[in-house]
């Protein structure tokens, strides 16, 4: 039985919890499948998986509409999928096929699906932050009823351009949510080696942007913070900044574990594995009576089925002689 002040009590609507759970699970399974397929060397590009970090993308996207625009960086699969980006186009892109979302030109690190408002991810750290800010500026100038969300890591906060972007967004009260997934690492380097003692959100706040921090592995907390922020931004109250603590479970780049490298603090990975956002939400949904074993099985099955179909389809495509697009750097 749940009490009103039980931290596990779910107050979000039924569909919200379910939808976020399904999105996280979908991302997780896609990432796991990518990891296992990667070994076959058909996907010949650097790949930054987000296993362990699914909650933020799932929760934020839950608050966005299809015409809202999303930007991201190198670790973008989750953001892309949560926004509704086509899995087929993603997998084809990883295979380097002309049918990929960027016609095979970008691989894992250059995703786009304009139809669902996932505008772009690129791997120069910080590169999309001002671009997203510019998209929000255009929306504001044109009086369009849409907002922009841009995801980035803790490392990105060290790039000067993010401060330039925060300044401009605050100055022009732009409709944008800046979302920092602070996983404490930039590749193998700990936050404390790169940034002084203070929170990232506090710097954003000082730039004149309302900011909040939360547990990035607690999907419903992410949702609460994101929905509050998105609502404020949509209401024209200027930009917001969200910082979520989380942890990357696999290696920085590639399909493998890397605990053997020993760069994490002892017990750090284990502690985070126990805080798996999917397990956490599943248990809470179950204990709130919002999910049962049969439903869960159904969800799993349908996700795995969809993924299986996509991979099969793309694999077949990869054996065909597809017409390569023409090379021109100019429109």
């Amino acid at each position: 039985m749940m009490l009103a002040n039980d931290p596990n009590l779910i107050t979000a609507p039924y569909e919200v919890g379910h939808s976020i759970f399904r999105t996280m699970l979908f991302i997780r399974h896609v990432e796991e499948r990518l990891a296992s397929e990667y070994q076959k060397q058909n996907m010949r590009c650097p790949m930054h998986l987000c296993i362990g970090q699914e909650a933020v993308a799932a929760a934020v996207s839950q608050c966005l509409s299809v015409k809202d625009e999303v930007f991201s960086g190198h670790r973008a699969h989750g953001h892309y999928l949560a926004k509704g980006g086509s899995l087929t186009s993603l997998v084809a892109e990883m295979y380097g096929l002309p049918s990929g979302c960027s016609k095979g030109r970008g691989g894992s690190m250059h995703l786009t699906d304009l139809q669902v408002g996932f505008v772009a991810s690129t791997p120069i750290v910080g590169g999309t932050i001002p671009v997203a800010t510019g998209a929000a500026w255009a929306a504001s100038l044109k009086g369009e009823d849409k907002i922009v969300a841009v995801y980035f890591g803790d490392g990105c906060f060290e790039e000067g351009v993010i401060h330039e972007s925060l300044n401009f967004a605050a100055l022009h009260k732009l409709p944008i949510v800046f979302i920092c997934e602070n996983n404490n690492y930039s590749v193998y380097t700990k936050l404390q080696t790169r940034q002084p003692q203070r929170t990232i959100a506090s710097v954003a706040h000082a730039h004149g942007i309302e900011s909040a921090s939360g547990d990035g592995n607690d999907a419903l907390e992410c949702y609460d913070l994101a929905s509050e922020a998105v609502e404020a931004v949509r209401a024209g109250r200027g930009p917001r900044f969200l910082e979520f603590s989380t942890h990357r479970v696999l290696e920085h780049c590639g399909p493998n574990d890397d605990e053997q490298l020993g760069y994490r603090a002892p017990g750090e990975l284990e502690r985070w594995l126990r805080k798996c956002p999917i397990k956490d939400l599943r248990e809470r949904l179950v204990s709130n009576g919002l999910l049962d074993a049969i439903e869960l099985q159904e969800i799993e099955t349908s996700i795995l089925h969809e993924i299986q179909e996509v991979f099969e389809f793309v694999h077949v495509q990869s054996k065909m002689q597809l017409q390569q697009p023409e090379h021109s750097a100019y429109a």
Partner: protein
Amino acid sequence: MHKISQRTITQAQAIREALDHQLTQDESVILIGEGVPDPKGIFGTTLGLQEKHGRKRVFDMPLSENGMTGICIGASLSGLKPVLVHQRLDFALLSMDQLINNAAKWHYMFGGQSSVPIVVRVIVGRGWGQGPQHSQSLQALFSHIPGLKVVMPVFPEDSRAMLVSAIQDKNPVIFIEHRWLHGLTGPVKEQIETTRLNKARVVREGNHLTLVATSYMVIEGLKAADALSAHGVDVEVLDLRCTSDIDQEAIIGSVNKTGLLIVADTGHLSLGISAEIIALATQHCFSKLSKAPERVACPSYPASTSAAQLEDYYPTAQHVASAVFKLKSDISEATQCEILRCLSPSGPIDVPSVDYAGPF
């Protein structure tokens, strides 16, 4: 009888007309830059435009060159056509990341689904002690990058047409102005026209020698050509206009006719525009070239503030003439002296004209 327009305006005014026209004609055009709406209006090129087109079309901006470039890229992806202005090219070096990694590549790297129609106006400073960090003419850097279009306008009417066409272009265009050309006057029709950006223009015909020049060097080249023609040497002067997609056809045509080539550029010589043009001409006109091409450009050190230390720095009409003498060995020494004498600068070398009083 058709009445020929006698309207004469400066390049700065022509640039302003292009901006005004585009802001009027195309509501997706916006204009932004540090100082754009201020009392000096970017050397007069943006004066009054905010008053006329409003604060939602014409903007000042924070000193955040890389960020603002990315912001303009983002706005362009959303259907706007931003014109971003830097008072000096040197400041745009802060934005090389966004220009090269994003603007230049966006169209290609996302499989041609979108493009980045921005114009970045950068101004090459010169004179009155601009010095090492306010006078770089780095067209070679931008022009090496696939995906960027790079143009260097000279004459007022052509500058206006080039800017209109640059704004309407679907690709990022680096529009490199030269501070000493802003005051150049010329006839400019009322009627606004467009132009092809990647075509060189023959601005003086001649049969003896081909001079390909960029930006302000077109003016110095024409001075030299004038002086030479008085002595029977007819130099064909090409205004290169576009330094990224170099007009091979025009260059090859002229060099095949004259057999002699000089390239005059406002940038550093080594690895500059002149190298590419000489390489192209050598590859395409090898058998027609009667002598090795010459180049006239800035040396391999920064520009000093002190005018005294710039005496051998900026190439002039005299340098162009000297290059001609190397290639046309039939010009007598007396004639050479005569030509150089008539080309010697009259006033101080650090201003484009005696009455030049800034802003710098």
